[in-house]
């Protein structure tokens, strides 16, 4: 009787982990990639029959890829291509035990490489794969494509409000906040809100500590609220809207986010930059940016764009977006991504 019970349990759980690879126009399936103490969730959605995939590298660090999985993206990109949502280690639905010691950028890039290898193993070596890095995801893709030979694993790169150079990012955030803040004050708009931001930027002029960097990021996020022409997104509403349909493990996402946000890993990131090695990049690149992005200002995107050696590259600016162009100007985002992938797959 006992044997039957345990055999039933084994069958039940092994059934959940049975390898399922679907090639069709409307797929939704997840698998995990185990590497260096972390099992990272990879969700594949959309049209896998197209043999063309866009791999989203989420921001944060510690924010999950769950939040990029919106109905609009499914209907406007997923109908044409496969979309891959990867939860980085210590983020989202990724799981493990005492693995905090492996939480660093170098490991994440190796994780990404293994995720790509598994994707090709599942959906065919002849697949066309594009990387799309947003915010902190821009740092991972910048590290990835500047490693010898790695860029050959993908067909193209889409950099969306990404950061490839954290020290430069801080300097440009301060400049952007000062410039826009002074302009808004001169126009007598949200003066009381802008004044403390301007004062902080005037008092902290460079060589930023981690605390200063985090404060600038906080101001950069709230400053978007003081620009009337931006479409404002309530992230909490977004989470609540998709928590049940997307089966988000909310407490796991929150625990991972709190741990990662507070880890020493951020000290390492604060001094990380890839500007000097971007010249080796030759693959097609699309740079998408929000005009009012203070978190990763437009000048950061221009630095990335100007430094890569790709001959096939373009930079497009959304006039009504801040840092979250994916949600703030979704049609603009989907149209540009679709066009770029169509031309380079």
């Amino acid at each position, binding site marked *: 009787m006992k044997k039957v019970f345990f055999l039933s349990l084994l069958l039940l759980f092994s059934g959940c982990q049975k390898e399922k690879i679907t090639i069709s126009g409307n797929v939704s399936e997840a698998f995990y990639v*185990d590497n260096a103490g972390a*099992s990272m969730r990879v969700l594949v959605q959309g049209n896998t029959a197209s043999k063309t995939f866009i791999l989203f590298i989420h921001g944060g660090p510690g924010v999950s890829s769950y939040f990029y999985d919106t109905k609009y993206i499914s209907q406007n990109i997923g109908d044409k291509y496969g979309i891959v949502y990867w939860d980085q280690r210590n983020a989202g639905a990724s799981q493990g*035990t005492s693995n905090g010691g492996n939480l660093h950028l170098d490991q994440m890039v190796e994780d990404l490489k293994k995720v790509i*290898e598994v994707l090709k193993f599942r959906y065919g070596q002849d697949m066309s794969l594009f990387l799309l890095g947003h915010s902190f995801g821009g740092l991972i893709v910048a590290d990835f494509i500047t490693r010898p030979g790695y860029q050959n694993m993908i067909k193209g790169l889409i950099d969306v409000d990404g950061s490839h150079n954290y020290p430069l990012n801080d300097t440009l955030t301060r400049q952007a906040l000062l410039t826009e803040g002074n302009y808004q004050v001169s126009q007598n708009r949200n003066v009381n809100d802008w004044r403390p931001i301007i004062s902080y930027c005037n008092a902290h002029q460079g060589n930023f500590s981690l605390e200063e960097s985090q404060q600038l990021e906080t101001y950069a996020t709230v400053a978007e609220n003081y620009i009337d022409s931006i479409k404002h997104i309530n992230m909490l509403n977004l989470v609540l809207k998709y928590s049940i349909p997307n089966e988000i493990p909310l407490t796991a996402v929150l625990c991972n986010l709190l741990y990662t946000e507070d880890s020493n890993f951020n000290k390492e990131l604060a001094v990380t930059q890839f500007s000097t090695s971007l010249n080796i990049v030759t693959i097609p690149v699309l740079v998408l940016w929000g005009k009012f992005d203070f978190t990763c200002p437009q000048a950061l995107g221009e630095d990335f764009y100007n430094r890569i050696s790709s001959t096939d590259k373009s930079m497009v600016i959304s006039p009504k977006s801040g840092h979250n162009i994916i949600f703030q100007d979704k049609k603009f985002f989907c149209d540009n991504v679709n066009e770029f992938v169509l031309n380079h797959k």
Partner: protein
Amino acid sequence: MLKPGTFILALLYCTLCQAQYDSISVPSGRHFNLKLSYNSSLIYPGMSTGVEYSLNHINERVLKNQKPGRDYKKERFISGNLNWYHHPYFHDNLYLTAEWVMRRTRFTGFISEFSAGPGFSRTFLGGTTYKVDDAGNISVIKLAGYNYALITIGGGFGYDFSMKKQLPFSTVAKMNLISMFPYNSTIYFRPVLEIGIRYTPGKSKNKVSKQSVTISK
């Protein structure tokens, strides 16, 4: 001035402690319960089954102004439970818990309870899990998942059908908070709602006779 005040306070305290209620320990009330419940968090299904063994059983009558008030049955149990929930694309969690349960049952049948205890969790990841070695060889890990230490704490309400009718059943709705660690070098919390029934084998009418309660004056 202080002495009469202290004396009055001491008197009041003694009145509260001794005169307001009386308890009778009923060792013969020891029994065990079998439990089966739906064990879910939000929309994610699961099951829980377990056994409770009664350690202590006290009938208690609270007096108000020297008049009979509410009657309670206070019980202490240790329980062993096997629990499972399924969260698609995340994990299946099979966990064992050993809990200390404090339960108070009014003689109307209404139950309130609190429980806490340690446990052991084994998760099974919600999808095929691949391992890539340094040479690029890919293999599938069978029954991939993790072992975690677990602590559960919970409270809930229910109804004991044996109090008013001769039915050896009770129902319970209980909210548990399980914490698993080390989970990605931190602690993973998950609220779990448990709705189920308990069966007490061999339990007959459970009404406590009036003789079993002594009222102090």
